[in-house]
């Protein structure tokens, strides 16, 4: 039973064999039936022929005794196994063949017996033998009689029995052969699954780059293998991202820790005056501040991942949010002599959490200001995109983002130029947070950039369902 439940191959074979045995049995039954019917038809045919022959052989003796002429004109002898009875219509037995001895082929005839052509019937004799009986009414020298001729059915059954024996002998052999064949077939069919199982056992988090071998991509197993490989690919991507994240996060955490540690250790090496100590402590506190902010941002992102942040949506003009965001950071642009312009369609309304969406725009603007050269121009444009979507386009004239970095810029801690970390501040989470904020609004944040041509980030938001059609332009 364990084998039954554990082994698909075994189960398939069992089912296969069982079904085949059932079908074979059914086939044997039907074949036997047809054989039997065919044999009996021949049997009956002979019987009826014999009835006619025997009719001609009946004679009536001078004493009124009905007898069978020993030899017929064509010289045929009544065959062994023929039972013959001749009755008068009144019900007196006129003749009974010796082969019958005392057995009767039924009682006296009823009135209609033998009058019409009737199919032979089967009769069980007193000694238990089955006999096939045909009746016919006949007239011997003006004496109407009912003639009954019967064959012992033994021959018929014997033939059927022989056929059955052949079938019975062949049946287990056929089933056994089919079982073996089925087992072999199942094993062959399932072999790729075994191979896949063995192969996939070797795949671990460290070896996610392995793939299952696929023999025929078009068949069922091939499709399973492809699905499995796709899953592996996605897993590998997720693992790679996680690994990168862990490495980058620990780097980001370690940098301020190292600073705190070395500043403190160096300060303790010699006596300093209070003002110097203040400076040291202040410097350490600055690093603590960095760490704190980093942890805050990570927490915010992990809460966002867990879906714990609920949006407080209101219908609000996208241009108004963009203006607010720009007002927050425009001093930074002023410091660098950059022009920060916001314009566009004031009638575009979105259903959004004002603070969260503003944060996204602030982060994008902050990024643009940081990476753009002095006296360049940063423009924010609100417009309707395709499908009536609301879009915010933030374009700068900075160095742009090389295409090989573009797929990763929204990844946490990802930085195009690792060396610029401290100089530029920030931990590389701004774009991740911006993208989360946009996605939380069922929107998309995309990047279009060519090296040396500036970068354009675009926020796509679904329009508010309450958007007034055709507002003031």
């Amino acid at each position, binding site marked *: 039973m364990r084998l039954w439940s554990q082994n698909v191959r075994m189960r398939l074979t069992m089912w296969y064999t069982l079904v085949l045995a059932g079908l074979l049995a059914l086939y044997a039954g039907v074949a036997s039936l047809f054989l039997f019917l065919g044999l009996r038809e021949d049997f009956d045919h002979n019987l009826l022929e014999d009835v006619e022959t025997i009719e001609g052989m009946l004679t009536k003796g001078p004493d009124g005794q009905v007898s069978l002429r020993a030899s017929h004109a064509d010289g045929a002898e009544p065959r062994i196994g023929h039972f013959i009875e001749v009755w008068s219509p009144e019900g007196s037995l006129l003749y009974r063949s010796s082969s019958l001895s005392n057995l009767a082929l039924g009682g006296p005839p009823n009135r209609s017996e033998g009058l019409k052509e009737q199919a032979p019937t089967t009769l069980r004799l007193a000694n238990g033998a089955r006999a096939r009986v045909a009746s016919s009414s006949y007239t011997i020298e003006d004496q109407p009689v009912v003639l009954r001729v019967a064959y012992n059915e033994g021959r018929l059954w014997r033939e059927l029995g022989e056929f059955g024996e052949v079938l019975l002998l062949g049946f287990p052999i056929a089933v056994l052969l089919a079982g073996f064949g089925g087992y072999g077939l199942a094993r062959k069919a399932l072999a790729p699954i075994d191979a896949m199982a063995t192969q996939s056992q070797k795949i671990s988090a460290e070896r996610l780059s392995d793939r299952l071998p696929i023999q025929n991509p078009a068949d069922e197993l091939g499709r399973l293998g492809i699905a499995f490989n796709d899953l592996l690919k996605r897993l590998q991507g997720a693992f790679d991202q996680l690994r990168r994240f862990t490495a980058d996060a620990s780097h980001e955490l370690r940098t301020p820790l190292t600073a705190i540690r070395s500043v403190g250790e160096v300060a303790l090496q010699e006596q300093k005056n209070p003002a110097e100590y*203040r*400076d040291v*402590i*202040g*410097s*350490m*506190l*600055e690093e*603590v*501040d960095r760490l*704190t*902010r980093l942890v*805050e*941002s990570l*927490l*915010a*992102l992990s*809460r966002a991942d867990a879906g*714990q942040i609920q949006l407080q949506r209101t219908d609000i003009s996208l241009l108004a949010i963009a203006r607010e965001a720009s007002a*927050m*950071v425009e*001093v*930074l642009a*002023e*410091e660098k002599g950059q022009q920060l312009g916001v314009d566009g369609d004031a009638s575009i309304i979105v259903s959004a959490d004002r*603070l*969260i969406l503003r*944060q996204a725009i*602030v*982060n994008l603007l*902050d990024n643009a200001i940081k990476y753009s050269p002095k006296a360049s121009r940063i423009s924010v444009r609100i417009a309707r995109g395709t499908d009536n979507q609301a879009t915010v386009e933030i374009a700068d004239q900075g160095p742009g983002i090389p295409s090989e970095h573009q797929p990763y810029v929204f990844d946490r801690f990802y930085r195009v130029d690792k060396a610029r970390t401290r100089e530029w*501040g*920030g931990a590389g*989470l701004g774009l991740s*947070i911006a993208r989360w904020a946009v996605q939380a609004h069922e929107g998309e944040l995309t990047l279009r950039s060519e090296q040396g041509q500036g970068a354009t980030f675009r926020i796509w938001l679904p329009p508010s369902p309450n958007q007034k059609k055709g507002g003031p332009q």
Partner: protein
Amino acid sequence: MRILIVEDETKVAHALREGLEREKYEVVVAPTGEEGFFLVNAQEFDLVILDLMLPGRDGLQVLSTLRKRGLQTPVLILTARDAIEDRVRGLDSGADDYLVKPFAFPELLARVRARLRRARTDPAVQLRLSDMEMDLLARNAKRAGRRLELTAREFELLEYLLRHKEEIVSREMLAREVWKETSRATTLDNVIDVHINRLRRKVDEPFDRKLIHTVRGVGFVLREEP
């Protein structure tokens, strides 16, 4: 003014005690929930600072038991868990305010002061420090009788600093109170620094006595002595 600190982390408890004592508060420290519970029942305090993660007895349990017994003392909770439901749970259990670890000490001081003076909001429309004065109704600021030309944001910033004169104000407090940015994940530090610099240029540069001081690693303070 007596303050009870229920905090198991020795370093934090020690720092809090020292910082608060310097501000002339009388401070008692309880390292466990049980001890805090006992002390609150035995003595009078004006404020309890309660850590939520305590060995033995959870801070929230201590708090709700105390509130059920009718304790009126304001309670400020400290928590390392800043998930919203934790804050809600804390406020539901009867806390008056909460602060998420790690917090800036000036922030704690500001909260403590706010709790202790509670009803007393500053209705003043005239603020002054040294030779600087601000008229909140007329929305003008003068120093040494000369009018300062301030932008709206600079005016709000100066007002906040002046309302908290002689107190250290962290960037985080400024971001929240002046810029109304609630998310701690958004960094406005650069923005704040730029504004402070501009304010300095207008308020301090033409004068010998500087009023706006940077406390490195902590924040800013508006006061007469350097």
